[in-house]
């Protein structure tokens, strides 16, 4: 049984087929890339996995259980952590508070517990603090913990999103174009960081528009074009695949 199974998923927007009968799996412990030109349907597939949009047909299973139809927060609690293509941090909250939301989401929160300051509430709060610090330290954001997220340098905000997702203690981390807007040095730093996370045992699905990052760190690469999966193989094979080269022709040279 694979950790994530995407089973004949199709998503239509009116007449447009954004994701067209895609089947794929992600095994526990893998670092998989998902690439494709603009508008290929990467984000849409991603949103289907996380419960943001329902598929028109097909289903997604996580750890053997069907998650299609569940609300995003339930999918998150099953163990899928995500980031967003367009940064979606909580600007008027501190870096610490931003990250704490991931831990709160995973551990759950009850109003009467907080109201009555029960023992359970204190235990839970200590656990939220611990997980938040852990995620902050893993992303080297601890020195910024007290800053408002809005005051964080742009490059660090990517790490903030990743930290928040890590605080949900995911079994699968799905990153949507984390390198967008970063320069080469920052991209290389991010690549090293993602590799470290993977080496620590996290399963990662990396959605990217830019082939070079994916080719350099992923064990396996899936390629989407116009909603269809046109390749699914190790980077070296995908780079030589004539169908992939054609899909990228005119948009971008494969690295």
């Amino acid at each position: 049984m694979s950790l994530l199974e995407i089973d004949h998923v199709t998503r239509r927007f009116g007449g447009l087929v954004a994701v067209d009968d895609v089947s794929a799996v992600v095994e526990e412990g893998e670092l998989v890339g998902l690439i494709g030109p603009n508008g290929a349907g990467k984000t849409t597939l991603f949103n289907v996995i996380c419960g943001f949009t329902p598929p028109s047909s097909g289903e997604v299973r996580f750890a053997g259980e069907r998650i299609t139809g569940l609300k995003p927060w339930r999918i998150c609690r099953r163990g899928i952590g995500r980031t967003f293509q367009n940064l979606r941090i909580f600007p008027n909250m501190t870096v610490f508070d931003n990250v704490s939301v991931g831990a709160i989401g995973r551990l759950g929160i009850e109003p009467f517990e907080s109201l009555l300051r029960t023992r359970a509430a204190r235990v839970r709060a200590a656990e939220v603090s611990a997980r938040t610090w852990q995620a902050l330290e893993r992303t080297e954001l601890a020195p910024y913990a007290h800053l408002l997220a809005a005051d964080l340098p742009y490059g660090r905000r990517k790490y903030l999103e990743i930290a928040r997702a890590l605080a949900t203690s995911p079994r699968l981390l799905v990153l949507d174009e984390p390198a967008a807007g970063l320069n080469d040095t920052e991209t290389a730093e991010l690549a090293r960081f993602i590799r470290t996370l993977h080496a620590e045992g996290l399963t990662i699905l990396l959605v990217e528009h830019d082939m070079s990052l994916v080719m350099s760190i992923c064990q396996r690469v899936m390629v989407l074009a116009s909603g269809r999966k046109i390749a699914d193989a190790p980077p070296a094979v995908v780079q030589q695949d004539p169908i992939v080269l054609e899909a990228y022709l005119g948009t971008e040279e494969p690295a």
Partner: protein
Amino acid sequence: MRGALAPLAVAAVLFAILPMGLSMAGSGYLFRLADVTLIFCILSLSMQLITGVAGLLTLGHAAFYGIGAYTAAILSTRVGLDAGLTIPVAGLVSALFGVLIALPTMRLVSIYFAVATLGLGEMIYVTLLNWVSFTRGPLGIGDIPPLRPFGFDLSSPLGTYFLIAALAVLSLLIVHRIAHSYYGNALRALREDDQCADAMGLPVVRLKIEVFAIATFLAGIAGALWAHTTGYVNPADFRFAESILILAMVVVGGLGSIPGAIVGAALLILLPEALRAIGEVRILAVGLIMFLCILFLPKGLFGEVAALDLVRRQFGAAWRGGSAARPLGWR
């Protein structure tokens, strides 16, 4: 010791210094002013939870205040229920309405939610106005007994003041524990980006309904206190304009800031009274002051960032790790 200083100071002012001063002044008017200020503190604190902390703009808050007031008025004049019971029951009835209204509207997005609460608030007002057999319509309900809960006679100015102050402090404690905890972080996340909060594992709709229930419960309590201390309720006290007044308190004080809600309520109740000397121009003056506040201090007189910083220093989680030498989390 940490965390004890601020509550002690609040208790000293509210339960010793202020009532002593008011008794020495011996003025019923000043007592009444203190009572009304505290009642509006409860209202602004409760709306702060919904609008400032959880980010749901509500334009019908006065309706829940009204439901609480009418519940207390009707139960005490028709059923003869003790004030010790009418007050909590008023809170529960108001929260029940709050949940009933929240269930269908919480899925609405920002401005639509605001308009829905506006419409429902006016519906409740029109019902109070026209259901003459039950509410006596525009005549209002009079002869509401003063506060004698469970045989304790608190109908004197001092007794009434103490009960209202105690309930205001209880409300503050409730709002404080909700807003200044990880539960509060979850609510703030809803305000910032509720879809994203959903993806982080927060049950968005459930949280919104919960916060609406807690806040409308408090608004109902404020209504019951108003009914018992005024002795008379009238639909006009719970109109849209009253909702806007409470909203103004929250915004002028600072959206999301608990101390801000108190500052805003105190300012907008006491300022018009302080300006009585200048006659009806005072309404203009209050409007101008509000306008200037928003223009120059858009984050409020006591903004959220400063408020959270202050509260964290008092009640925050012990700092550990990292290099920022201040408390950041909650206990």
